[in-house]
């Protein structure tokens, strides 16, 4: 398969249309499996009781908020390096969904913080850097919307996306570098998972569901952008 064939918006458009429904279907099935495992298979937490089940949307949303930003920055960098039209369109298509998952991570974290920490919000490093991520998404969307020429908007947005990517390791390591109210990582590549296996399974299923959802809506949105820009 010649992957460069799909770097053109005209050839990518039909491919995106064909695969988007499959990703949407996978997202639905994975979410149903994740919710069933999370609510009916995974046990009640010994310390937090039932409220811990917020983890099944909070952690996947937080992961996706950072992952989508990195993917957006990579597309933006490819656009600057190779001057490809599709790269800017992909970065533009990813931003609203990334912002949405960032808001969901903040919202669910706030609702989880009140019963467990006694407060909806604290200005600790993890929460503040995640809020900065939301503002970076808003800034990217606003900057692109403010420039009429799409190619110039892509280039301006790309610079912001690339510079803003420095915030991602800050979010990830904030709980290591600073004393925070937020707990450390539940899942680590080097240390494994610090949670019960059924809880972990439900969380990973929901993370996959959110991932598939993000791909599906991004592909549909990039098709809209291709039609709007190139007819």
């Amino acid at each position, binding site marked *: 398969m010649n992957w460069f064939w799909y770097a053109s918006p005209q050839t990518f458009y039909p491919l995106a249309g064909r695969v988007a429904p499959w990703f949407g279907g996978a997202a639905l099935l994975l979410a149903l499996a994740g919710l069933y495992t999370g609510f009916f298979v995974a046990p009640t937490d010994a310390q937090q*009781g*039932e*409220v811990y*089940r*917020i983890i099944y*949307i*909070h952690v996947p*949303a937080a992961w996706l908020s950072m992952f989508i930003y990195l993917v957006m920055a990579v597309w933006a960098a490819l656009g600057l390096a190779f001057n490809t039209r599709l790269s800017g369109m992909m970065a533009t298509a990813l931003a*609203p*969904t990334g912002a*949405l998952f960032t*808001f*969901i991570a903040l*919202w*669910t974290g706030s*609702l*989880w913080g*009140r*019963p467990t920490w006694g407060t909806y919000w604290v200005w600790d490093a993890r929460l503040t850097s995640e809020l900065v991520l939301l503002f970076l998404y808003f800034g990217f969307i606003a900057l692109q919307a403010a420039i009429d020429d799409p190619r110039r908007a892509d280039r301006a947005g790309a610079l912001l996306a690339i510079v803003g990517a420095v915030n991602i390791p800050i979010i990830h390591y904030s709980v290591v570098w600073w004393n925070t109210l937020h707990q450390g990582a539940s899942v680590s590549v080097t240390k494994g998972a610090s949670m019960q296996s059924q809880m972990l399974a439900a969380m990973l299923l929901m993370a996959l569901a959110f991932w598939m*959802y993000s791909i599906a*809506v991004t592909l*549909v*949105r990039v*098709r*809209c952008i291709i*039609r*709007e820009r190139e007819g």
Partner: protein
Amino acid sequence: MSDYGFYLWGSYAVTFVLLFVEIIFLMKRKREAKA
């Protein structure tokens, strides 16, 4: 559950409403782009 229902269901409700709203807006944009 009764003590913390607001926090748990408030999280799930807002999440799925927002995802649903995103899909609705996207479908509207798709129709307009095709028109």
